[in-house]
């Protein structure tokens, strides 16, 4: 369980996260919101790249913000990035082993743990160099990096971005299995609502740095405020009306 209390982040004049209090109970939790809502900034706070102006984050009872950034991985925090970050010059095995080496899991089980993680995400060539893989496989390498070495919290930042539907489905199956298999809490950020609703039991929604809804995914996705944030009903109405006026004026 992750408890976020009064989290505020300020960059000169901008407040990408504004007094957010939210609980991620466990399992796979969705975190959605329009572009610029503060989702990635929230991940950056968890990873330690960004220091919040106020607030606290407790993960399984530990004060996450009190930990030095690189030690959080050892504690059990994993993350993927929007842009691919698998190391091209290394093999699939080395990519995953490298995470294991900096985790709490011991050296004795390294080889078997790494091969198990690679197999779990559905890759079959541990010796292949990552630079020679296609987009889907590189994404899967990142996922294997996220699940290896006793993770406790896994942050997935648009893991299926740019993948075709059938490959997103495979990705969804892998993500769905993580909490049960590893007992880790997964936070999934994605714009693909079918991926979010198929993976996440609960979902939190950010808009302009504020929490506008959180709860069961089915309820949240029906929430009027959420729909408005995504589709911008008011602005949409204005635009449609404005366009109509424009059209009617033109012939005259």
């Amino acid at each position, binding site marked *: 369980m992750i408890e976020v209390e009064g989290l505020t982040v300020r960059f000169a004049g901008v407040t990408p996260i504004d007094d957010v209090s939210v609980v991620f109970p466990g399992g796979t939790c969705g975190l959605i919101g329009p572009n610029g809502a503060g989702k990635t900034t929230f991940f950056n706070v968890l*990873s*330690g*790249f960004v220091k919040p102006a106020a607030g606290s984050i407790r993960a399984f009872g530990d004060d996450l913000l009190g930990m030095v*950034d*690189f*030690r*959080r*991985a*050892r504690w059990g*925090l*994993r*993350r993927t*990035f929007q842009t691919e*970050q698998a*190391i*091209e*010059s*290394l*093999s699939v*095995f*080395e990519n995953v*082993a*490298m*995470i294991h*080496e*900096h*985790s709490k899991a011991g050296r004795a089980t390294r080889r078997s743990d790494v091969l198990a993680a690679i197999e779990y995400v559905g890759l079959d060539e*541990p*010796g292949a160099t990552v630079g020679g893989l296609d987009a889907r496989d590189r994404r899967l390498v990142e996922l294997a*990096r996220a699940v290896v070495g006793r993770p406790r919290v896994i942050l997935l930042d648009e893991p299926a971005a740019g993948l075709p539907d059938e490959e997103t489905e495979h990705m969804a199956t892998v993500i769905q299995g993580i909490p049960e298999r590893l007992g880790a809490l997964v936070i999934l950020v994605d714009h693909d609502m079918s991926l979010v609703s198929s993976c996440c039991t609960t979902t939190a929604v950010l808009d302009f740095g504020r929490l506008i809804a959180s709860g069961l995914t089915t309820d949240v996705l029906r929430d009027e405020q959420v729909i408005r944030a995504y589709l911008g009903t008011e602005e949409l109405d204005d635009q449609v009306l404005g366009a109509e006026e424009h059209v009617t004026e033109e012939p005259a």
Partner: protein
Amino acid sequence: MNRLLGRGVLVRGAAILALMLVALFALPAWFDTSWIDTFTSVAIYAVVSAGLVVLYGKVGMISLGQFALLAVGTWTGLRLNYLVDLPFPLLLLATGAVTCVVGVVIGLPALRLSGLFLALITLMGAGAITLVLRTLEFPNGGGGFSGHRDSDLGGVVPMVRPSWGTSEVGFYRYTVIVCALVFLLALAHFVLKPGRAWAAIRESEPAALAAGVNITLYKMWAFALASFMTGVAGCLLASQVGQTTPQPFLLTNNLLLIATAMIGGIFTLWGAVVAGVLSKLVPFFLQTEWGVGQYWLTIIFGLGMLQVLLTAPGGIAEQLPKDLANLARLVSRPFRKRPSASKETP
């Protein structure tokens, strides 16, 4: 493990073994002492270039101070030689350790800076070292910190050589073996935990941080390793020449060094060997065989650098095998085409 240790490793191992046998036994049989002396320099400069492979090729940090560190190694080797009576291997290790400390201090700005700014800071560090060494002069058996005394009076004893390396050929073989061991040390780093952490830092620092890599530690580790290697090379150089002055340690050599390292191939240890050949054997060959002066080389290296930056980032070590493969395909084309042509005729 067999799947990970494929045929490539075996082929490479065989190539290294063959190269070592040629270097240790064939070259001393074929060439006279002035060539052997040059081959010794090649080995020493290959190690210095390998330091750049560690820093830039593996971690992505540009240091323009590696040649100055070679000077530090040479100075330290000479100073320790006149100060204490150590067996030669210990002298090498001690020199490496002292140079390692100096290198880490020069590398400290790397924790905050990268790219052009790191290059500038390390070049300034090199400038400072060059200036200090010019004032101190190189030790020649005198007292005090500098260990230098006026050599006009004569009676200067050159630096010791390893016990089984007193002859030119013996010292050459000793150097080759020491350099091979230093290469092995670097290689061990590349294939183990530090190598993977360095690859992560090179790819993306935020991602490395998220993966749990202590970036400060591993960057300093790279500087420490590269400086240790350069220090050992410096000590070998000191023993090779016996005595030296500040004159050969020019500031511009720092730039020439990274140029040759890049042309040779800055991403692999093979490239470092090529860089050693480029910076020592090629000038010697041109000078003795055709009487071509050193200054021409600066121009040639400049053109080579352009070539590397524009078309072949991996340098000669990566480009040459590719070019040879292309050439082989080109040559063998007429012989391979026949069967396919006969198929098409009906």
